[in-house]
């Protein structure tokens, strides 16, 4: 349902993403891997609307969304997280997540000033949504804790919760387990599987190979902005070009 056609993003003379054709497996866990600087994050930023592609298209449910701003892309049901979680450290977990459902509400300034019925209903809706997604990611007990006081792994969960609060069909996760120990990585993997079971399509960028090979059903490999391989973990494992990209050209020479 989401695919890219000849997607290209250029920064001046640098081609960060080049002619990438890719489609997501619906309702499954997809992964994008590649060496540092391969253009993975740029690919995410283009698909989620933060960057405009230089050429090529992003097609979602048959419609070209490559010229839409990021907030419109989010409204269509495409959510994302960032490598650094960007949370507001001086507020509680709940306060951070409650704004996640804002895009599904209509209240404007006048509703806020006069505290209209609509505002109260929508605030209640946002609150329920926040508690629901926090429960889903396993943070029910930490709702009232300050974000500064929770662990890195919990912050990642809060970021997941925020993305889920937007009622997404697809979630893009940018290095969700960066800076996290192996045990916690396994727990986050379980959470991603749980999300996929709920029918949410997942696409993640990751460096931890073992984890990806176990978790993902479809993998795309980027190198210098170009797609060099695509397929199941097994296929990727035996792909010569991928081995070359990771181990250096001389390995196979």
């Amino acid at each position, binding site marked *: 349902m989401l695919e890219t056609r000849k997607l290209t993003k250029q920064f001046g003379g640098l081609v960060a993403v080049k002619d990438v054709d890719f489609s997501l497996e619906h309702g499954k866990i997809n992964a994008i891997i590649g060496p540092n600087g391969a253009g993975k994050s740029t690919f995410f930023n283009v698909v*989620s*609307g*933060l960057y405009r592609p230089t050429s090529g298209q992003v097609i979602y449910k048959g419609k070209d969304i490559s010229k839409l*701003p*990021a*907030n*419109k*892309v*989010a*409204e269509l049901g495409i*959510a*994302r997280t*960032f490598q650094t979680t*960007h*949370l*507001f450290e001086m*507020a509680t977990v709940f*306060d951070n997540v*409650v*704004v*996640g459902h*804002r*895009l599904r*509400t209509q*209240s*404007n*300034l006048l*509703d*806020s*000033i006069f*505290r209209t019925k609509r*505002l109260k209903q*929508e*605030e209640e809706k*946002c609150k329920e949504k926040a508690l629901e997604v926090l429960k889903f990611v396993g943070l029910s007990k930490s709702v009232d804790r*300050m974000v500064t006081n929770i662990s890195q792994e919990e912050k990642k969960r809060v970021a997941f919760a*925020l993305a889920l*609060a*937007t009622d997404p069909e697809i979630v893009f996760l940018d290095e969700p387990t960066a800076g996290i120990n192996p045990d916690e990585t396994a727990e986050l993997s379980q959470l991603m599987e749980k999300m996929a079971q709920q029918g949410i399509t997942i696409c993640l960028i990751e460096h931890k190979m073992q984890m990806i090979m176990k978790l993902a059903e479809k993998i795309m490999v980027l190198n210098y902005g170009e797609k060099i391989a695509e397929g199941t973990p097994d296929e990727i494992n035996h792909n010569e070009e991928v081995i070359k990209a990771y181990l250096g050209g001389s390995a196979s020479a």
Partner: protein
Amino acid sequence: MAAIFSKRNVVIGLIVLAALFPYVARNDYYLHVLTLAFIWMIAVYGLNLLAGFTGYLSLAHAGFFAIGAYALGLLTVKAEMGFWPAFLLAPVITTGIGFLVGIIALRTKEHFFAIYTLCVGYIIYLVIDKWEGLTGGVRGLIGIPAPADIGPISLSTPIAQYYFVLTILLLVILVIYRIIHSLTGKTFIAIRNSEDLALSLGISTIKNKLLSFVLSTFFAGVAGALYASFIRFIGPDIGNLNITFDLLVYMIVGGIGTLSGPIVGTLLIVWLSQNLQFLQDYRMLIFGPLLTLIVIFSPRGIVGFIAGWFTNWKLRRKVNINQAQEQAEEV
């Protein structure tokens, strides 16, 4: 004990205190100073909404304050409009100009936004200073009427004006309180926190930043119009950068991004400068280090400092209670 100091009781207590002040002080000079401080507070609330809650530091704030003041002055003195229509129109004019400036200014971010608005503020000052045909230039505008009577209520005495300004201030605080504690305010805070994250949560950052900017100019306009009708003489100096920096100091000392910061900061600095008047310009020798210390040790000002201390105290108490319970259970 804690119940006596609940939020609601403190607020009611402060309002009663403010309402009784004229009868306690019985001194027109104090009344004048406090009325003026209330007017500054309204402007600081506008600045705080944008800089404190949305994360965009505008240095054109005194410019919009001056536009509000001059709009009221020109409408009443030159266009000979009645006070109340002029008083309603002045913030609208300020907001209109704010909207046009905002569309362009908000294409920039962070330092660039501050520098751009600094320039806009200075240009507004220059226009007021040099456009003698309209504004009277350095001679200023004199003979601005005081608020007209509302039916039998006269607003010409210092006490009446004090209550008039206090009423508007309370309304402004109520409106700001409701904005901050609603979805609109949460949207602003999300933008302050991270614009990229806000965008990917489906928030139109352009629309909401513009809303916050326009609101901040609206409050500057209200404060300016009140100032003009209270002092009844205005010169270009009210649009000067000094005023912007005064407002900034009130906001930062009180607590940027806090709800009661503008009250605390404005009262404290106005009180200090009144008491240190014998030092003349050497007062700055006290304000400078004070500001530096606050920025280093308590970036969220006095209110932020106290709030942080209070949260820690509550947490510690909670932990103690939990420990006590656990011990009791073990026994």
